[in-house]
């Protein structure tokens, strides 16, 4: 029994590695590694620069923790951007452009595993982008982030929990999008909607009414709050929930992640059945 479990585990890992490698190759082999690196960071760097200039226009040239709030939010948002928009587009390409989704589905490995591996490649690129943008911005904009004082365990734990959330949401969302004739770019729509509710570039407390309430319970808001607490310990100006302790925010993120993962698992199973029943996996999208 244990030998069978071990063999299944090895097979699972092999499938994951192959899917992630395929995803990475499709994403990156169109150019040389250095150019790909520039491509990956260009978007978040431009977004950070836009926010930095907006901040300077209003607050003046002095660097302040709030600038670090903006830049850290936009740097780490690459996780969600790539995880949702990048992955949804990738799946759309697999079906419509490369016409290979149906072959992946009938392969011996589980379809969910393929999707997981494919999205991990997107998240890998996002992690790279977040690190580079944050490093460059800290030096260039004199952000109050000190590599020696960063709470790395908290940062890693928060990002690991966020990865579960991003994967759960993006896998279901991408599968549901296959139901549309032309699903390309709809991933961007989903990511942008979450952007508003995440506290990435403004505190969720400025949102009015129901929007503000929804944003308060968004796992992305809790995640980014913990990222900022980990990067800038003791800087109260960067906090969205100053009345809640770090342990409280972490607990909240754990609960929110658990809810999203459980709901995501159920939704994924339903979306997969639906996609199969309605022939979405082999739909000609006229790419």
């Amino acid at each position, binding site marked *: 029994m244990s030998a069978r479990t071990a063999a299944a585990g090895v097979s699972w890992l092999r499938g994951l590695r192959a899917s992630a490698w395929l995803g990475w190759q499709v994403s990156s082999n169109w150019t040389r590694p250095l150019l790909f690196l520039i491509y990956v960071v260009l978007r978040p760097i*431009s977004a950070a620069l836009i926010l930095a200039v907006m901040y300077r226009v*209003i607050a003046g040239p002095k660097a302040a923790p*709030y600038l670090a709030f*903006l830049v850290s939010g936009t740097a780490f948002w690459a996780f969600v951007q790539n995880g949702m928009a990048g992955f949804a587009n990738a799946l759309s390409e697999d079906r419509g452009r490369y016409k290979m989704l149906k072959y992946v589905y009938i392969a011996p490995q589980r379809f969910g595993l393929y999707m997981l591996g494919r999205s991990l490649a997107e998240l890998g690129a996002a992690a790279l982008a977040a690190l580079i943008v944050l490093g460059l911005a800290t030096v260039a904009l004199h952000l109050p982030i000190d590599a020696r004082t960063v709470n790395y365990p908290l940062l890693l734990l928060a990002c690991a929990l966020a990865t579960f959330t991003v994967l759960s949401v993006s896998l279901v969302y991408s599968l549901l999008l296959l139901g549309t004739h*032309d699903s390309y*770019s709809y991933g*961007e*729509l989903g990511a942008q909607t979450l952007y*508003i509710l995440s506290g990435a570039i*403004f505190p969720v407390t400025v949102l009015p009414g129901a929007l503000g309430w929804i944003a308060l319970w968004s796992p992305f808001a809790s995640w980014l709050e913990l990222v900022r607490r980990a990067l800038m310990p003791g800087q109260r100006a960067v906090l969205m929930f100053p009345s809640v302790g770090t342990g409280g925010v972490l607990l909240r993120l754990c609960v929110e992640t658990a809810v999203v993962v459980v709901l995501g698992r159920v939704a994924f199973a339903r979306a997969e059945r639906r996609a199969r029943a309605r022939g979405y996996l082999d739909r000609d999208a006229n790419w």
Partner: protein
Amino acid sequence: MRAQNSRAVDGAPSAPAIFARSAVARSYPRWRAAVRDRSWVLLETVLPLIGTIAMIYVYKGLHAPDRFLGFVVMGGAMLAYWSNVLWSMGTQLYWDRDKGNLELYAIAPVSFVAVLCGMALGGLIFSTVRAMCVVVIASLLFDVHYVWSAVPAAFGVFLLALLALYGMGSLMGSLFLFYGREVWHVASAMQEPVYFLGGFYFPVHSLGAVLGGVAALLPITLGLDAMRQLLLPGTPSFIAVHWEVLALVVQVPVYAAAARAALQQMEMRSRREGRLIMRGG
């Protein structure tokens, strides 16, 4: 050249008529698609609206004066045209080649310039609906006010900027044709940096003289700044409106001529290297 040759045939339409018909014909699929599949309305209106609202809340989070809200709304509206130029002009010949249309354009008695004009005409419907939605909804949501008496002048500047911008888009269309699979990524990579350089969300003068000068090569930078000065007086400006208009007047023929030359070059080189029928990048 092909169009002029057709005059020799008895009863054949003149070159300008062929040009006009070709442009209208190329714009038709885009107009038709807009009616046939309305799902684009969601994508083309909600997506930029969300982006604009996010930037408005950034200013709100910074407790910025209210005049900056209108500033962002106008920038958000003009994004539509940049996206259209980038994706529906710049990369279009590449997609057309991939789908096998480019070789049909090449053997048809039409000019590539007419085809590109048609693309621009057809794409304007999407962009204008998108821009109008952003302006109307965001202005109502955030109570933005404009100087209505300046609307005709701002509309003139807008048309001038569009002419220059679509000339630039035609130029990009030719240049992008020489890329393979990476063209999509090149276009994608150009999107956000232009949001930054174009001053879509902040005053261009904040970029300083050198970067601001580079940004002024983009027609949308000058057009947007001029329209803001006219419609939202009191907001920070880059240079005086009349200089911006003059620069746009110069940019229109320059980009048009560059696009025409690039198209001819592209056509010749593509014929020589067999790129007109290259598929799959």
